[in-house]
C-alpha cells in the first residue's frame, strides 16, 4: 500500500472512530431541525468520506473499528456494491443487468443471435 493509500485508510478509520465517539449519545433525528443538521453534517463530510470508501475487501478489512455503543463497524468495499449496466439488443431495446465494480456489461444474454 502506498503512502497516499495508507493516508486515505487512516483518514477513513479516524472518520469512523470520530463518529463512534459520539454515537452513544446520538438520539434519533426526528425533528426537521435535527434532520437538517444531520444532512448538513453529512454534506460537510461527504468529499473525504467518498474518497476513502474502500474498493476491495482487503482494504475494507483494514477499516474495522469498535463503536462506543459496543458494536463494531467497517467500511463496505465498493467491489461488493451493485453496479447497473445496460445492454441493447439488435432491435435497440435496452436490457439492464448488474455487474461488479468497474466491469463492462457482459455480452447480451437474452438476445444472442447465434
Amino acid at each position, binding site marked *: 500500500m502506498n503512502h497516499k493509500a495508507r493516508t486515505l485508510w487512516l483518514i477513513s478509520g479516524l472518520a469512523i472512530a470520530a463518529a463512534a465517539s459520539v454515537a452513544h449519545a446520538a438520539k434519533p433525528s426526528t425533528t426537521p431541525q435535527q434532520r437538517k443538521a444531520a444532512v448538513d453534517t*453529512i454534506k460537510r463530510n461527504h468529499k473525504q468520506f467518498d474518497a476513502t470508501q474502500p474498493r476491495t475487501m482487503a482494504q475494507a478489512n483494514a477499516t474495522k473499528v469498535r463503536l462506543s455503543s459496543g458494536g463494531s463497524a467497517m467500511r463496505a468495499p465498493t467491489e461488493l456494491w451493485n453496479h447497473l449496466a445496460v445492454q441493447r439488443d439488435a432491435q435497440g431495446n435496452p436490457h439492464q443487468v448488474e455487474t461488479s465494480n468497474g466491469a463492462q456489461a457482459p455480452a447480451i444474454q437474452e438476445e444472442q443471435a447465434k
Partner: protein
Amino acid sequence: MNKPLLALTVAISMALFGATVASAADVVPVNFDDPGEGYNDTTPAAPVGGNPGTTLGEQRQIVAQFAADLWGSVLASDVPVYVGAQFNPLGPNVLGSAGTTFYIYNFPGAAYPDTIYFSALADALAGEDLVPGYVDISSQFSSDFTFYYGLDDNTPAGQINFLDVVMHEFGHGLGFANAENEGTGEFAGGLQDIYSVYTYDNTAGKYWPQMTVNERKASGINYGNVVFTGASATAGAGLILDPRTGFRVTAPASIAGDYPYGTASFGPAISPANFGGSVVLGTDGVGASNDGCEPLDNGAAIAGNIAMLDRGTCNFTVKVLNAQIAGATGVLIADNAPGNPPPGLGGTDPAITIPSIRITQALGNSIKAVLPGVTVGFVVDPNELQGADDAGRPRLYMPDPVQGGSSGSHYDTALAPNALMEPAINDSLFAAINLDITPNLLQDTGWKLNDGNATIDGCDTGIGIVDDAGIIIGANVQATSNLCLSRAARRGDYQGCMDAYKGRMLADGLITDKQAGRMMACAAKVGKAKKQ
C-alpha cells in the same frame, strides 16, 4: 396558505398527532450534486407520468424522494436512513451503482453475534444512528443516460423506468445483498452476514456460514440449487409465484429430470401443448454436421419429432427454420460453451412456426450419449412454485460462471412473475405499487414492516401500506400525498392533486370506492387546524 406554511403546519401536526406513522422509516436522499448538474440540472423538462417537475433535475429529485417515501413507508425504523444521491457521467452502458457504506456487527439489538448487518438495518435494530455524520447508503446514477422519470407504469418502449431502478438499488442498500465475494467464496471481514445466514445450498445441505470458503465458492455457481430460507420470503413466494413450468427429460431414466432452458424471441412460446416427443439429432452433412446451418439430410427421422442441433456458425433462426422444413415439431439448441443457466435464443423470423429452446452444453452431451430413446416435454406442475425449490423457498441467482454484481444478491431469473430484485430489471415491473417478495426477505433479515394502514396527516385511510405479497398501495398513497404536499402552494392545490390521484387509482382498480372516499376525507383535513 402558502407552500412553506402548509408544509410546516402538516409537519407540526404530524409530530403532535402522527403517532400511527412514527414507526415509518424516514429515508432521506442527500443530494451531493453541484448547482446546475445531476439532481440540480436546470434543463427544462415537460411533466411526465405524474411527475410534475419542470426541469430534469427536479424530476430526478422527485423520483428519488418518491422512492425514498415508498421504502420509508414500508419499513419501520425510528432512525433516519440517509442515502447519498448523485448523478454523474459514468460512461457508455453504465447506469449506476448503490450499496451500503458500512457493515456493522455485534451492536446492541443484533439478533446474531459476529454477523454483518448493513448500516440502515443496524441503526433500525439498535434504535440509534450507530455511525452518525455519514450516509448509510451510497447511490449514483448516470447522467449520460435518458431515463423515464414518470411515476406511472407507462414507460415508453426503448426507455428505462428510473423509479424501478432506484427502488431496486435502494433495496440493495437496505439489505438485499450479502457481504460475500462469489468469485472467491470469502466473507467480508471474515464474518458471516445476515443475508447469508438464510442462504442455503440444497445440494450441499448447508447454509453458507456452515461452509468452508471453497464450499461457498462452489455454491456460488450452483445454479438452481441455492435458496433463501427465511420464513417470510417463503410465505410470500407461496402467495405470488406461478405454478412451476419447465423443460423435462422424461426418458431414459438415467437422465430424466427437469432442466433449465432459455426461451426464443422468435416462433411460438413453448407450452405443454406444443412441445414434446422423441429427440432426434439433426445432421446436415456439411462442416460441423449437427449445427443445422444447412438443410437437414435426415428429414425422414426428424419429421414429427424434436430436432436437436448444436449452437454455432449461423443464426438460431436459420437452424430452427431448417429443422422446421425437415418436419420437426420443436427444436433443442445445445449450447457450445459451458454455463448455466442457458441464455435465450435471439433473432426474428416470422416464417418460424415451431417452438425452440436452448439447453446447456452439459445436457446436450448427456442427451447425445443416450440417443436414441430420449423423450422430452414441457410440463406444468401445479404443486410446485416457479423459481422456488420443492419446499417453496425462493431461489437465489447463482449462475455458472459467476456474474460479478449479479450472483448471490438477487432472486433467480427463473421466478415467475418477475421480481424486483432479479438481476435484470425489466419492463414487467411496477415498483411504485408492487415490491413482490422483496419486503419479505428484508423482514427475514430483521427489518420490521409497517403492517398498518396508510395515513395522511395522522388520519387513517384504511388502505394497507404493504401486504404479505408485497403490494404497497398504501405506501404509494403516502408517497403521493407527500409529493402533492410538496408542490402545493394552497390547500386547494393539494386537494386537486389528490383528487386527480384518486381518479387514476380508481381507474386502475387499485383502490375501492370506499377506500377512495376515506382517503379523500383524510386529504380534506390536511392544513386544517386540529382540536387539541
